[in-house]
């Protein structure tokens, strides 16, 4: 069995030295190229660099059908700064937003590139008759698409299985939405910050039972960017670099109807890969702050379990005890997450990574968690309930 090499053999330490976000909004006036440009420019500014200093660009974006452009990476390269440079786009469905900095990491760690700009963009609003319609085409074209599925079916089926397997109540899950939308009030980029109650969630429009309107993140446009450099460069650019110390990802098989949806085993696999690299043995004790992927409220709980921060079926209990509050023991989604900030798919995953970077740098402003933080984790999820990406960072 060939395994992951232990981290002592890794070629090069890689640091994050700058990041930028656009506003996340339901509809943005600017084109996808212009949105990418704004995020990239802000990241370069924070790093104190210019585009000419960058030698490679990594782009992340989810289905081409949203922006309405085939080979979207080619199109985005112009706004993202990938001009006459080594530039490519990575894609693992909804998990892309964290795969993009992972790819940026190996661009630098391999020695092929020295300063890398990582840009993730999504413009979901152009889709007609509704962006939701794009999701009919993500299913098996022969055995699933003829049933006219929509995306929310996926989440509803997984949520109900999770609820049934571990006897979890909807009101316990709704607390995630309450927490994240409230956290987003302190996030200047957020699309739908709000003070809501569990009651509000339970009374909101039923979309696909057990999923209701306030269980769900919105349709969004937005872009995010990050600058990654090697150790030598990092020390010259900043006194407070944040290091990428672990990366992991896993794709489970396509045949999701043929496996139990109660537990995301692929996430556990991805997390073990990243933890091994970062030397994390007891995730629930060693991780100080976490941004698990929360396109739906139950997903945050599901992912906290897959990340082994909570035991299977026990994340709701810890949530209720306040462990995941911004002032709790393991703050979860202090940014407000996708539920509060918005969900421009790939950009949302990179936003989560940037949130951890700002927490570790101590520049998260009003979003800054109370406890001192040393180790943070961001995670994204996607495909047909089969993909997860995990990144571990330290200051």
């Amino acid at each position, binding site marked *: 069995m060939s395994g992951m090499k232990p981290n002592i053999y890794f*070629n090069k330490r890689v640091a994050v030295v700058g990041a930028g976000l656009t506003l996340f909004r339901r509809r943005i006036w600017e084109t996808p190229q212009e949105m990418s440009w704004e995020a990239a420019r802000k990241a370069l500014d924070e790093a104190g660099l210019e585009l000419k200093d960058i030698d490679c660009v990594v782009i992340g974006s989810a289905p081409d059908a949203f922006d309405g452009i085939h080979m979207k990476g080619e199109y985005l390269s112009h706004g993202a700064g990938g001009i006459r440079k080594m530039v490519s786009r990575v894609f693992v469905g909804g998990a892309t937003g964290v795969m993009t900095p992972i790819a940026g990491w190996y661009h630098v760690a*391999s020695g092929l590139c020295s300063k890398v700009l990582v840009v993730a963009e999504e413009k979901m609003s152009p889709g007609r008759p509704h962006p939701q319609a794009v999701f009919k085409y993500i299913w098996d074209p022969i055995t699933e698409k003829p049933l006219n599925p929509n995306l929310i079916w996926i989440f509803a089926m997984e949520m109900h299985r999770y609820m049934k397997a571990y006897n979890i109540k909807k009101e316990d899950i709704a607390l995630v939405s309450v927490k994240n939308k409230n956290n987003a009030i302190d996030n200047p980029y957020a699309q739908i910050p709000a003070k809501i109650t569990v009651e509000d969630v339970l009374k909101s429009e039923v979309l696909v039972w057990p999923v209701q309107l306030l269980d769900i993140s919105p349709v969004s446009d937005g872009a995010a960017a990050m600058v990654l450099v090697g150790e030598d460069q990092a020390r010259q650019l900043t006194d407070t670099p944040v290091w990428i110390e672990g990366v992991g990802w896993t794709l489970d*098989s396509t045949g999701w109807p043929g496996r139990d949806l109660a537990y995301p085993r692929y996430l556990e696999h991805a997390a073990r890969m990243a933890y091994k690299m970062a030397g994390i043995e007891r995730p629930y004790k060693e991780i100080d702050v976490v941004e698990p992927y929360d396109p739906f409220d139950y997903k945050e709980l599901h992912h906290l379990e897959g990340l082994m921060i909570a035991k299977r079926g026990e994340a709701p209990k810890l949530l209720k005890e306040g462990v995941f509050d911004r002032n709790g023991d393991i703050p979860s989604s202090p940014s407000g997450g996708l539920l509060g900030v918005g969900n421009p798919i790939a950009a949302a995953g990179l936003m989560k990574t940037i949130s951890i970077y700002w927490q570790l740098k101590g520049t998260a402003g009003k979003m800054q968690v109370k406890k001192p933080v040393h180790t943070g984790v961001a995670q994204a999820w996607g495909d047909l309930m089969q993909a997860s990406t995990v990144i571990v960072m330290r200051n």
Partner: protein
Amino acid sequence: MQRVAIVGIGWYGFRPQTKEVSFREMMFEAAVRAYQDAGGINPREEVDTFISCQEDFWEGISIADEFAPDPIGGAMRPTMTVDGDGLQCLTHAIMHINSGLSDVTVVEAHGKPSDILTLPDIVDFAMDPLYVRKVSPNYHFIAGLDATLFMKEFSATQEDLATVVVKNKENGLKNPRASYASKLSVSDVLEKPYVVYPLTELDIAPYVDGAINIVLASEEVARRYTDTPIWIEGASFATDSANLETATLGKALYLKIAADNAYKMAKIESPSKEIKGAFIDDRYSYKELQHLEALSLTKDPVKALREGQLYPDGDIPTNPLGGHLAEGVPLEASGLALLIDAIEYLRQGKESAIVASWRGVPTFTGAVTVLKR
């Protein structure tokens, strides 16, 4: 940077139609052959990472990477997708290995254009929606603009372009993957009507279905899988300024940037002396000549062609197995199709080769790989 070895290759298809298999079954067939070629490697246990190169609208599936893992042995393993040509995936694989993430990485790409009923419309859909899309009823117009300027700058004639077609289709006659190989004359090419001036339908490579799988290994472990590794000495890719109105026409700047990086990595100072075979994108006949110049293999590709240097026994054998004009264009597997040609060429005893791909209209993206035996 440590060298990375190619220890196994496998392919399936390379026919205009492959209706007998689904795209997933085609990927499986290519993978089985590659793993056998790599000394019977078990992908479930001995491969650290998997990379698939594909695009949603070629597959007809949104988030097509969902379908990547199972047929190549990558389920519940670190499998990912790069939206690009197979040679770009190859460079990502080199980065996986050199970062310390992996000792053995598999790269996969496939194309099933026969399943796409509206292929020209899909190419249009890749163009800028505000400025470029649908300005012409024929997506080849961008190649026409580029070809005209290239011909002016290098004093190339339509006979020169036709000569490339005749050469490559004839070279393909001995290649089992070359469905479109044939014996033609220059006048056969010139007599065809234009698709877009100066290109006739024979100047444009047709599409083909095919799947390719490549097994790469670090220098430390390569010999476990084969006694005859092929070494990747240099690899890179690049995009020009991608918008049509800002991109370079007439010359393949994307490939020049990629080649310069790859040569630097391979410590090659005079490419024309050190490279013994060129396997380069020729999906339009003029592109072979344009790409030769971008790769610094010759300053005057037209003269090289006229003097016979580009034939299999010339100084710069170019597409000696026929290139895309003979094999067809298997979408994102195109670069890997040229790579397989190069590997077979090296396995026959040649010393070195360069592989250079382009992603086709409307992109300005190319990738380069320098190989040695």
